[in-house]
């Protein structure tokens, strides 16, 4: 029957007999609910998957065994039987004191890693007292303007023992220098500290749009962190190559996968051009995917991701170490799937999405809180989100076996299709001259905008249903949410005024000048950033020094 995704398939005699004798009479009597079934991304789904959908598929070759190439079943041989994923809830709001308290609360509740959200001024390289920061200080994350703030943020949290993820991109190298300075002050060994810097500038141009500098110098900064990490912090991931934001911007699952992995390849190529050894630096690159609501499509996406990365590392870059072949990833459930309406339903959505991430073999996970379509989470909402992971880990039994869906006709066929779709995009981007070139042509931006508009039309026409939004609507009481008031900005401004009065300005000027000079040349900027932050130069001052040399980036807005 030609109702599949256009793949030639030959049904067995038994399958054809079933169609004739059982299916046809049923369809004649009661037609199906829809003429076509598609994933949330619009990918066509067949009525039934059988061995005919896996023609040419070889279990030993295409599925393999966990902990071995092509890693379809996971990157560890025992997966979640050996060690559960890291439960890493993204948190950050208000001042460093506010977020430090939330961090310590989450750790006391059984969370196993930290993840820092910074506010928009910090993400854009402005101090809290910059005019453009007005109204934004401490709102979408914690306000960090200098090492003094960073010291408060990690006060009484031993960086030697806890892994920390930091969601920051354009000023990532600056914030990382601050983190390393705090670790040094605590006496933690850089060789042992572990964590992840997001530092993925390519997806900023593609999706989230928190960029400062043009692509070329931005990529240099990223590669500087790779080089520094290889030598100094072997357990730290200097990057988390992120599909999350691409998906949130409205991409399909295949686009998320393709653009993220092609971004990854771009970083590998730039690292190699710097003279870094693939087998040395690639094991420190990590990935970050979205967990959306279409359960099987998401699981197929994670499985395909591992297979594509392995193939690319072996065939394109000649990597010889298994640590370079194995794609490690963090997952966050889909913020864009959550509804402001009937917000308690979001607990259910998040649980299903988290289940997909776990069954897809994630290494760490953030589960969104029920109130995230309204505001940053309250402690109450953040606790339920963490409990959701603990319930999956300890009550559902899905962690008892590795890759529980492996061998399912449907999941294997979908994994193949998603992989094929992603390679098509990757090859298209290769032909454009790589991801930086594709971004400059707005190619991924345009593909995502098309997909997001298509989905909105489907919602408007009720071809896709969002419960509580375009169907099953009901009256409800407003939710109690976290409000960040403007006193945060005042406290930050006061702290900055004191900082500038107390530090040695001549030392700050000297180190910022050294940084500027180095930026004009080709030296790795990490040591210069480290010097500057230790003299308490602010995020804004450091980013301004680089703005002078690098210039700033403006995108061509497409609608």
């Amino acid at each position: 029957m030609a109702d599949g995704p256009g793949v030639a398939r030959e049904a067995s005699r038994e399958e054809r007999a079933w169609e004739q004798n059982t299916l046809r009479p049923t369809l004649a009597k009661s037609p199906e609910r829809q003429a076509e079934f598609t994933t949330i991304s619009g990918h066509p789904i067949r009525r039934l998957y059988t061995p005919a959908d896996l023609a040419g598929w070889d279990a030993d070759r295409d599925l393999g065994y966990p902990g071995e190439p092509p890693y379809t079943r996971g990157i560890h041989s025992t997966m979640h039987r050996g060690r559960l994923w890291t439960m890493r809830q993204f948190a950050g709001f208000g001042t460093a004191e506010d977020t430090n308290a939330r961090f310590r609360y989450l750790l006391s509740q059984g969370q196993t890693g930290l993840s820092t959200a910074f506010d928009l001024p910090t993400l854009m390289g402005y101090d809290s007292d910059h005019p453009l920061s007005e109204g934004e200080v401490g709102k979408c994350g914690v306000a960090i303007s200098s090492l003094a703030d960073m010291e408060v943020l990690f006060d009484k949290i031993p960086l030697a023992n806890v892994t920390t993820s930091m969601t920051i991109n354009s000023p990532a190298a600056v914030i990382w220098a601050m983190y390393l300075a705090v670790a040094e002050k605590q006496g933690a060994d850089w060789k042992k500290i572990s964590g992840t810097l997001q530092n993925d500038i390519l997806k900023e141009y593609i999706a989230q749009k928190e960029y400062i500098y043009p692509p070329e110098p931005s990529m240099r900064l990223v590669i500087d962190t790779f080089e520094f990490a290889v030598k100094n912090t072997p357990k730290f991931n200097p990057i988390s190559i992120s599909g999350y934001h691409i998906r949130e911007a409205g991409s399909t699952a295949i686009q998320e996968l393709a653009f993220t992995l092609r971004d990854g390849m771009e970083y590998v190529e730039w690292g190699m051009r710097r003279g870094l050894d693939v087998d040395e630096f690639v094991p420190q690159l990590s990935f970050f995917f979205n967990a959306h609501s279409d359960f099987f499509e998401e699981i197929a996406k994670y499985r395909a991701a591992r297979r594509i990365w392995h193939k690319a590392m072996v065939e394109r870059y000649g990597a010889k170490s298994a640590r370079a072949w194995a794609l490690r990833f963090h997952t966050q459930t889909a913020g864009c799937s959550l509804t402001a309406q009937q917000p308690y339903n979001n607990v259910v959505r998040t649980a299903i999405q988290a289940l997909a991430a776990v069954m897809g073999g994630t290494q760490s996970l953030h589960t969104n809180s029920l109130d995230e379509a309204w505001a940053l989470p309250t402690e109450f909402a953040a606790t339920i989100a963490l409990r959701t992971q603990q319930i999956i880990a300890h009550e559902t039994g899905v962690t008892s076996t590795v890759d529980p869906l492996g061998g399912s006709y449907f999941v294997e066929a979908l994994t193949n299709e998603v992989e094929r779709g992603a390679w098509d995009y990757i090859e298209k981007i290769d032909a454009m001259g790589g991801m930086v070139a594709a971004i400059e042509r707005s190619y991924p931006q345009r593909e995502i905008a098309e997909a997001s508009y298509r989905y909105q039309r489907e919602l408007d026409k009720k071809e896709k249903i969002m419960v509580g939004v375009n169907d099953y609507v009901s009256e409800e009481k407003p939710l109690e949410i976290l409000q960040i008031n403007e006193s945060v900005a005042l406290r930050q401004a006061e702290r900055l005024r004191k900082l500038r009065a107390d530090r040695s300005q001549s030392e700050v000027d000297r180190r910022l000048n050294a940084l500027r000079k180095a930026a004009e040349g080709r030296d790795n900027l990490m040591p210069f950033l480290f010097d500057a932050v230790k003299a308490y130069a602010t995020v804004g001052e450091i980013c301004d020094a680089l703005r002078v040399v690098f210039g700033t980036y403006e995108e061509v807005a497409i609608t």
Partner: protein
Amino acid sequence: MPEKKIRVLIAKPGLDGHDRGAKVIARALRDAGMEVIYTGLRQTPEMIATAAAQEDVDVIGLSILSGAHNTICPQLMNLLRNKGMQDVTVLVGGIIPEADIPDLKKSGIAEIFLPGTSTQDIVDFIHKRVEQ
């Protein structure tokens, strides 16, 4: 003579770069026959008011997700008043706590569209408002 098209400025104020909503709305209004100008990212209230005056728009649509609405909206409304542009309909779409809505409306914002609003509702609102 063909009817004059409704002119809309879609603006993305503040430091936030999440432009999915702004772009979807821009396209939906264009598909509904309106003339749409999109400002691009990180516009200050001054830039938005100036663009609105230059483009002689009937409607300004602000997309704000970052929590900066209580700062940005009153600033923009003051600027519009000073420029004698009280007739321009100003709409806000995005993540706005319900508790903030009364004050935003008092400042002159015509309507606030929360997540989940269908694009048709926004099109209908603009038609009704501009034709009044």
